[in-house]
């Protein structure tokens, strides 16, 4: 809580410096982290809904074991972009795309790819917490195993480790057989994170995971993201620039000038917040528009 308030106060005084400080401090604290997980690379991605071109030629290389934040005003294609990364884009009937998404060097859009395996390796946490209403907390966490028909030798160990990593274990360990819907919004979102961890994805996509939550829960989830980044590649879409500065190693800035969304620049988070190359990035991160 105090960090958020602090950041807010500072950002009123001098937005560029305060966010840069947050980003720098956080990079320093992290030190030289070891590389873990698998990276994912998007190459020349375009997307359409019907005739509407919504993403124009976006290429980003997401490095293994890093947290990449995607920022930008509403409607610039961030969410569409991350839905392309785990093939959720294709569920919209009018959707079309072009480009390649490489996971372990292989294009996930190659014909003959087993889509369910791809989605197993690239988990997703949605904007609105969506625990399965007919399942208990325990069943929710383990639902991925049943959905994908995976066998695990020690379920209760997995259950505990997922909930611990999602920062929810202490709050729910005595009520694992209650329904997920009985939890608070922040707890539900952490339950959804625990649920995606159970199938041990290499990449975790988060589409504004904190937009419906209070500051306390947000902070709790940010801690979770930091802890998880040791073992997987995380890509988070956020509207909250303080959040991007606090949790991410790298930041990509998307912008649409009324036409399709483009990637304006993508580099280390401290660079984006302290020394952006593009004037538009600077205007956005300092709150001059957006």
């Amino acid at each position, binding site marked *: 809580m105090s960090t958020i308030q602090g950041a807010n106060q500072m950002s009123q005084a001098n937005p560029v410096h305060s966010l840069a400080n947050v980003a720098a401090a956080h990079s320093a604290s992290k030190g030289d982290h070891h590389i873990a997980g698998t990276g994912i690379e998007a190459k020349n991605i375009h997307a359409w809904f019907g005739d509407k071109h919504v993403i124009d030629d976006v290429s980003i290389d997401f490095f293994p074991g890093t947290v990449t934040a995607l920022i930008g005003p509403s409607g610039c294609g961030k969410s569409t972009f991350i839905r392309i990364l*785990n093939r*959720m884009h294709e*569920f919209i*009937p009018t959707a079309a795309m072009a480009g390649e998404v490489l996971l372990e060097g292989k294009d996930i859009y190659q014909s003959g790819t087993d889509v*369910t*395996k791809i*989605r*197993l390796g690239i*988990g*997703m946490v*949605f904007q*609105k917490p*969506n625990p*399965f*209403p*007919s*399942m208990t907390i325990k069943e929710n966490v383990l*639902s*991925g195993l*049943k*959905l*994908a*028909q995976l066998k695990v030798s020690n379920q209760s160990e997995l259950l505990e480790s997922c909930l611990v990593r999602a920062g929810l274990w202490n709050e729910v360990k005595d009520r694992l057989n209650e*329904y997920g*819907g009985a939890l608070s919004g922040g707890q539900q979102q952490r339950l*959804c994170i625990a*649920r*995606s961890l159970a*199938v041990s994805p290499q990449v975790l996509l988060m589409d504004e995971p904190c937009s419906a939550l209070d500051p306390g829960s947000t902070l709790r989830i940010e801690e979770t993201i930091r802890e998880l980044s040791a073992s997987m590649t995380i890509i988070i879409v956020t509207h909250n620039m303080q959040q991007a500065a606090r949790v991410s190693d790298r930041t990509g800035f998307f912008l649409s000038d009324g036409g399709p969304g483009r990637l304006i620049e993508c580099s280390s988070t401290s660079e984006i917040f302290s020394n952006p190359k593009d004037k538009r990035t600077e205007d956005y991160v300092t709150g001059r528009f957006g």
Partner: protein
Amino acid sequence: MSTATIPRPSKPWGVNFKQAIPDVVAAFATLLITYAIVAYTPLKGKLAFVIVLFLVAVIASAAISGIRRDRKAALNSISTVMIYVAGMFVIFPLGSILYEIIRRGIGGLSLGMFSTDMAVTASDAPLSEGGLIHAVVGTFYIVIIASLISVPIGILTALYLTEIKGKAAGTIRFFVQAMSGIPSIVAGLFIYAVWMIALGNQYSAAAGAMALAILMIPTVARTSEEVLKLIPSDLREAGLAMGGTQWRTVAMIVIPAAQSGLITAVILGVARVAGETAPLLLTMGGADALNLNPFAGNSSAIPFYVWKNFLLGTETAIDRAWSGVLVLMIIVLFFFSLTRFLSGRKGRF
């Protein structure tokens, strides 16, 4: 010391005795005025009493609110009275039907009627002789067989419309809607013409069940579709995003989330057909003897038994008919309570 500072819980928004006095007075005045109008004007009879009471109640409640507060409050009480009256209009016919069925049916009810049929009993024999076990068994058979046919077809159709959303969805939805408008006698005629005349099958409970299934499918399909549409698409996406195939996602997440609604769909389907008579006349042939084989031979059902006894018209036959109606109601009520109980133990939404 903290105990002294805790106030006693109260409900300051409630109506206290003093405030209620004008309302009670107004209610009595309404009744009195209505009596007076019915007694001293040409408006006579029960119907006149009800209509006058309604009008006077509307005026009285509007007047009281208008005097106490303002025009807005008066309008509010007028609409409140109208809503209460509308609610009573719904309860009244159902309540009086139930009352009449119980009043006239209870006399013929006995345990013996559930162990004997009418094979050797004349319809105008005393009520202590004979029974309707043949009709009860027939109704069980046709409801169960019709459900076995139409519940899978209905729910799978609804899944096609909501989950697969295939190219034919529009056409199928149109046909399902058209199908729900089929008169029940036409469903009976269809099975009679195709299954019995053209294919040469005889009267049977199964033939009756097929005719009822034609009526039940659209009800189950349309209700299930509405229920499945209410399941948030977030849940489907979450299932798919975790590596579930579409079928696993539907079976593990969508259907359990919609469970109680789908059970309602089945109940509505059963309710639609359990009391049908017309299609059974053409397909089951009717019988007075118990027929335990649902696939061949004349058999009866409770609505059939009721229809036949009303047609006979003797005093005991009509008593038997009323008891038949009561038994049908009890069985349907038992079925519904059981399903609700079983489904209420688990499930959300």
